[in-house]
């Protein structure tokens, strides 16, 4: 075990001379790799032709079967971040990043074997379960460390890391396609080899992050930084224990806010290509729709940094108010853009919506820090990610089933999304109310005060 002592939190405490600006690249090393999950769909089509090569043959996997790989990974992302959150927080970022690297690379290697022997269960277990655990642990691993290094700009710091998760797909998608082209022959599709290369590359990349990450010494503050003298009622100076956070209404209100914001965004993100073509027949081609999806991905990534940084100036709750109010107005505008045939207005509306979808993810760690303090913020963030898993099911279901219902009931395809847009707008109204109800956490949940309370009887007895 002593061989692995370099992973301990005590061995990651920064020595004098360490720059805090080394920590965001360490976080990005992990998030850029696990962000590959968003690009996993590039493997779906090639994996339906592993036996038939040019077209699917009997025995080849079909798309619904392959779709489960991503769903399992997302499920385990939410589950592992909730289950291992406290372990990540107490063990420090290096141990968490190291574990995430092992699981992430291991998931790819097991999946490569699964492709090689054509056993889908190995891929479910490899990429789905092991990779999903890596996603959960890796996603939350740098959060509290960044917040501690950047007490003056917590939103910007976590926004930078979570932006990397959005950016990971940009790298993985062309890289995976290029590798598959390189390894494919006329009698073989190079998915297994691509998995092996990706696993090895990601492992090295994540290990660099694990090696360079440091936690600040206790009571460290940036020079010149003075904690605001005037206390803000929505920014606590106390810490709340991870499982006590679950007992507070604030946790569940923020859970609802995140879930509703993500539900509204994720549904349209998955259907953006089809929706744009159906709402503007003849105006948006298949190629243009692909461009639109790419542009949305860029705004999804950029929004993470922009909105999280903005929240440092206008406050977390106000940032979510902007998401809800602006989002409501934009969702209500979308059917109108279709009726007047304005592609430009449609594109602008969705680019802003999707930037706020990304912004919602990136701003929430700082929101939690404001509410529950820094001590267990990573673990509490892990618990909150179950909202993402829930939204991952709700969003696509709402968009797909309501569209399907409308089309089968004779609504023209160009108008089939109108009801969905109004429902999304309605969800944001609920989110607005939940956000409005967020008040400071009751003092009885604060760790220090609880400890004092526990000590009081002992002192009295003495």
């Amino acid at each position: 075990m002593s061989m692995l002592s370099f992973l301990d939190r005590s061995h990651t405490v920064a020595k004098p001379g360490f720059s805090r600006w080394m920590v965001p690249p360490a976080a990005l090393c992990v998030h850029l790799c696990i962000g590959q999950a968003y690009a996993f769909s590039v493997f779906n089509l090639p994996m339906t032709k592993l036996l038939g090569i040019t077209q699917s043959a009997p025995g080849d996997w079909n798309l619904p079967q392959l779709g489960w790989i991503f769903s399992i990974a997302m499920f385990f992302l939410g589950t592992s971040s909730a289950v291992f959150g406290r372990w990540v927080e107490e063990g420090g970022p290096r141990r968490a990043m190291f574990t995430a690297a092992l699981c992430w690379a291991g998931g790819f290697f097991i999946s490569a074997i699964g492709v090689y022997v054509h056993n889908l269960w190995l891929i479910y277990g490899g990429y789905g379960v092991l990779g999903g655990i890596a996603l959960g642990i890796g996603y939350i691993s740098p959060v509290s460390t960044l917040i501690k290094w950047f007490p003056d700009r917590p939103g910007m710091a976590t926004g930078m890391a979570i932006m990397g998760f959005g950016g990971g797909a940009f790298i993985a998608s062309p890289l995976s396609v290029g590798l598959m082209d390189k390894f494919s022959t006329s009698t073989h599709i190079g998915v297994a080899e691509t998995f092996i290369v990706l696993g090895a590359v990601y492992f090295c990349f994540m290990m660099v992050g694990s090696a360079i990450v440091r936690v600040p010494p206790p009571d460290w503050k940036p020079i010149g930084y003075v904690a605001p003298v005037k206390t803000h009622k929505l920014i606590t100076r106390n810490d709340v224990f991870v499982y006590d956070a679950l007992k507070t209404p604030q946790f569940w209100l923020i859970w609802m806010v995140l879930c509703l914001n993500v539900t509204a965004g994720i549904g349209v993100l998955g259907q953006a290509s089809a929706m744009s073509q159906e709402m503007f027949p003849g105006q948006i081609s298949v190629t243009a729709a692909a461009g639109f999806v790419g542009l949305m991905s860029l705004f999804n990534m950029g929004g993470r940094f922009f909105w999280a940084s903005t929240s440092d100036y206008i406050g977390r709750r106000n940032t979510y108010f902007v998401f809800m109010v602006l989002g409501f107005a934009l969702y209500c505008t979308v059917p109108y853009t279709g009726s007047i045939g304005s592609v430009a207005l449609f594109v602008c509306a969705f680019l802003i919506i999707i930037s706020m979808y990304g912004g919602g993810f990136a701003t929430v760690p700082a929101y939690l820090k404001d509410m529950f303090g820094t001590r267990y913020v990573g673990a509490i963030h892990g618990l909150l990610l179950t909202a993402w898993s829930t939204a991952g099911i709700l969003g696509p279901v709402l968009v797909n089933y309501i569209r399907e219902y409308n089309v089968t009931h004779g609504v023209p395809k160009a108008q089939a999304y109108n009801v969905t847009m109004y429902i999304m707008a309605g969800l944001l109204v609920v989110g607005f109310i939940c956000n409005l109800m967020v008040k400071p956490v009751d003092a009885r949940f604060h760790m220090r005060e609880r400890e004092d309370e526990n000590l009081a009887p002992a002192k009295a007895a003495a």
Partner: protein
Amino acid sequence: MTTANQQGTPAWQLALAWLFVGIPLTWGVLQTLSNAMKLFH
């Protein structure tokens, strides 16, 4: 914000760390941007 710690970390180390993540990210963004431009063709 400037910190005392920043003065002690070699600039090349910082630059290397940021390039390590910045180069692949920029490459990916440019690839996506070139695809996104198809919307305007």
